[in-house]
């Protein structure tokens, strides 16, 4: 019945084949990228060595948006075509995305201390990311709030799509709110033009993070499938006992 839509066993084999192609390049890119970022790129003329936080902060921000987009897409696929692996993929992606978002907020805060002399500034970008973080938390909380897991994943899928439509509106509002309330003297994160010696490690980190996400996603999907299988087995057992 479910096989007509997707075959978990086939997916499992595909995942096993793909895994090393994601995991190894991810590891290599992140290590090499970090080396360039920490030792082999120029310090900023204004910010000094603190600018190196950017090499984690900016890719983490990219990932925060990228993962949410992927969640919304797989949620839509799950709702429209009732593809069971699609919901599973959204479910697997959410905590990873939330972690990237948290890393982005944390590094933003660490960056803010030397730059602005305070751990938190209501900067437009950071505030938008904070709200995105709440959207992730809402998704995960809704997913786990029901006794019937199927209900949780479908409701969370609807929420992911609503959130996705809202992200640009929130971003626009927060940008607007920020220009209204903040004097222009605040240094923007995107302030200085980026030199290519900084751009290359930044892209390496970005691609590395993306591949790392793919590897982690496959791993988590497999874990969730195993958990579901265990649940199915105990349920079958229960059913057999009541039938006897």
């Amino acid at each position, binding site marked *: 019945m479910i096989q007509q839509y997707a075959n978990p066993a086939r997916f499992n084999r595909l995942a096993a084949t793909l895994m090393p192609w994601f995991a190894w390049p991810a590891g290599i890119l992140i290590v090499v990228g970090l080396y360039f970022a920490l030792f082999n790129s120029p310090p900023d003329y204004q910010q000094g060595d603190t600018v190196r936080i950017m090499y984690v902060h900016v890719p983490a921000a990219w990932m925060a948006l990228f993962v949410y987009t992927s969640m919304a897409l797989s949620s839509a696929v799950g709702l429209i075509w009732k593809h069971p692996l699609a919901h599973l993929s959204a479910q697997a992606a959410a905590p990873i995305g939330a972690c990237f978002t948290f890393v982005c907020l944390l590094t933003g805060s660490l960056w803010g201390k030397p730059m602005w002399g305070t751990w938190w500034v209501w900067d437009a970008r950071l505030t938008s990311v904070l709200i995105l973080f709440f959207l992730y938390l809402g998704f995960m909380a809704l997913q786990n709030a029901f006794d019937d897991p199927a209900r949780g994943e479908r409701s969370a899928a*609807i929420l992911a799509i609503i959130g996705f439509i809202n992200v640009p509106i929130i971003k626009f509002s927060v940008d607007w709110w920020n220009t209204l309330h903040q004097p222009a003297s605040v240094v923007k994160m995107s302030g200085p033009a980026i030199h290519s010696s900084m751009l290359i490690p930044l892209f390496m980190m970005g691609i590395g993070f993306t591949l790392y996400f793919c590897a982690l996603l496959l791993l988590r999907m497999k874990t969730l499938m195993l958990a579901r299988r265990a649940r199915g087995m105990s349920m079958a057992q229960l059913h057999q006992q009541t039938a006897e």
Partner: protein
Amino acid sequence: MSALVLILRREMRLALRQIGDSAIIVLFFVLAAVLFPFGVGPEPNMLARMAPGVVWVTALLAAMLSFERLFTPDFEDGSLEQLALGPAPLEMVALAKAAAHWLTTGLPLMIAAPLIAVLYRLPDSGYGALMTTMALGTPTISLIGTVGAALTLGSRRGGVLLSLLVIPLIVPVLIFGTAAIDAAIGGFPVRQHLMLMGGFLLGALVLTPLATAAALRQALE
């Protein structure tokens, strides 16, 4: 009589029989707003400066408390099944529910808002904008809250979870609601803010019934 009118009449009849539920929400609104001066001190200039934000934030928090009752009783006693099996599509049921929520919660909050503004000594030039933004913003909140209520229907965490889902989504309404009042007080044009809020309302009016109906179908499944 059309199904929409019948459902709306049912909702209003039920709400009026349990008018205490709405009254308690408005009471919470006033009480929460009264708390702030105890926290920050009674300095008139500061209170006047805070007024638009306090009115809007406390109105939102009060509205949060009301959403859980929107579908839960109907879900638990089987009325929602009967509404779903009625002649009207669920989208229309969702719209009727949101309209009834606005009439019984949004409108009373809107009427109580100037009272709190008086307590905070909102400058006279701000009242027009306050009422207009409330008139445009509270229906939007009712509509978005309806989605949240439908999504969390039958969940273990109910109300708190609902707030977690809805609060991030209504940040834009809060931003432009307070900004319009601030602009009016400062003598700046408010047209742009109000048009944006009108846009949010129209967008919510079109999209939220679809999302609510989809969520209700999942809940009944």
